[in-house]
């Protein structure tokens, strides 16, 4: 799975650095974005293999970002993992219904996160 590109959309810089370093340690290339609009631009131009996104972000929140990604034919099958502090059942259900493939609540377990990332990338490869 090393060498795959992962877009990380996260407005909290500390979390962004943590997640980026975690993924880079595993050999993934990381595209960091600090708001939903920038994340959308990077998704369109760089076509990542996986998107990890927060829900609460400036300019364009995570739900809107996911909707716009899913509306793009070229990105419609890109796996999306939501990583959010929102832990209510309604938010999780809404996130998955909007088109995310997986959901993790912060604070999160790094090893579990990495396994989920790997599984999502494998599933994408299997479907391709």
């Amino acid at each position, binding site marked *: 799975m090393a060498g795959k590109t992962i877009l990380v959309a996260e407005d*909290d810089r*500390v*979390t962004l*650095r*943590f997640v980026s*370093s*975690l993924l880079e*340690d595993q050999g993934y290339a990381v595209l960091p974005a600090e708001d939903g609009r920038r994340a959308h631009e990077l998704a369109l131009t760089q076509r990542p293999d996986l998107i990890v996104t927060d829900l609460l972000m400036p300019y364009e929140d995570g739900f809107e970002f996911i909707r716009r990604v899913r509306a793009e034919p070229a990105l419609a099958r890109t796996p999306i993992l939501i990583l959010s502090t929102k832990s209510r059942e309604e938010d999780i259900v809404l996130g998955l219904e909007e088109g995310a493939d997986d959901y993790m609540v*912060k*604070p*999160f*377990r*790094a*090893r*579990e996160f990495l396994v989920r990332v790997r599984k999502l990338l494998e599933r994408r490869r299997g479907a391709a």
Partner: protein
Amino acid sequence: MYRALVLSVLATGIVFLGLTLVIVVGKAWREAREARGRAVRRELEPRVLAYAHGTEPSLMAVLGRPIRRAERRVLERIFLDHVQRVEGIERERLARALDELGYVEEYVAGVGSPRWWRRAECAERLGLAGASRATGVLIRALDDEVSEVRLRAAKALGAVGGRAAVRPLLRALNEPNRWSTIRIGDILAGMGSPVVAELLDAFPDLSLHAKVAALDILGRVRSLEAVGWLRARLGDREPDIRARAAHALGQIGDLEAGADLVEALGDREWPVRAMAAKALGKLRCRQAVPRLAELLRDRQWWVRANAAEALRLMPPAGIEALERALADPDAYARHQACLMLEEAGVLEQRISALAGPDGPAREAAVELVRRFVAAGQTGRLRELAERHQAAEVRSALAALLPPDPAEARP
């Protein structure tokens, strides 16, 4: 006179110049310090994260050089920022490094500081560091004279966890004049299943107020090991205990408690009957449907409302019971049945048959509308008579509904 004026202008100018210099130098010094801090952070943070993600037993080996005194605050900030954003092994490793670098020792000493904000800050940081060896210090801080220090110590104890941290927090539940029961309840519930054994053990010594809070905590922790104990509490002589035990059993959701909760539907105190009805709905306990249907006629509104809500959650038997209740001689039972059938979408679903070819279904829909009209529940039907997508349904409803008294008024 002129000379005095010149001197005073000069003196004012010198004062202003001096103040400006102080501000400029102070700002420059602050900015230089912050820039230095950012540079140190840029250098150290990747190493700290590499340590957190890795398996190296000691942080010092990953840092590669000794930490200067001026860098310690920056390093501490890096740890504190990350330790509260992760769980699991990474969190344990970051917490261990905080201890290895001597920060935990500083916090332990800080809890004894004469300045209350320092005590509060250090108590909080001991929680972030998960410093189980500081449990004793934090327990003592629960008796601090400043409420903010007490609260942060309580939160820290919740974060540190372990059985030793539970008992003092339970004691805090016994002192509602010093502690917010809701906050302590949140902390204990957040500690999860480790609180259960201690809580059951301490329960007999708690005040009634604390016992009620403790039962709520058991429900929120959703501890299966407490189910048998909670079932026994349904026979407690205190009605509040019986009611909260029923509520907790509903939150846990173990069907094993179904028979006891059905029995509690006959309790002489209405809060117990109301909570038992609510719990049975959460359990989706279909054996309770006949007794819940009877409770639609209870003399207390909360009991009727909870029984109706529970029946709504248990289709098809619960919905059938609500439909039968439309013909009940008791007006309260009919009212609750109407409300729940509306909420469950049954009314809308059934009246669609008014436009369909199926004769018996159409007859059943007409009968349902008549029963709603007889119960005086026509609000939703009038809305549908105006806005239903099928014209045939709208006209059939208009024919079945009596004139709107609101429109008849001048």
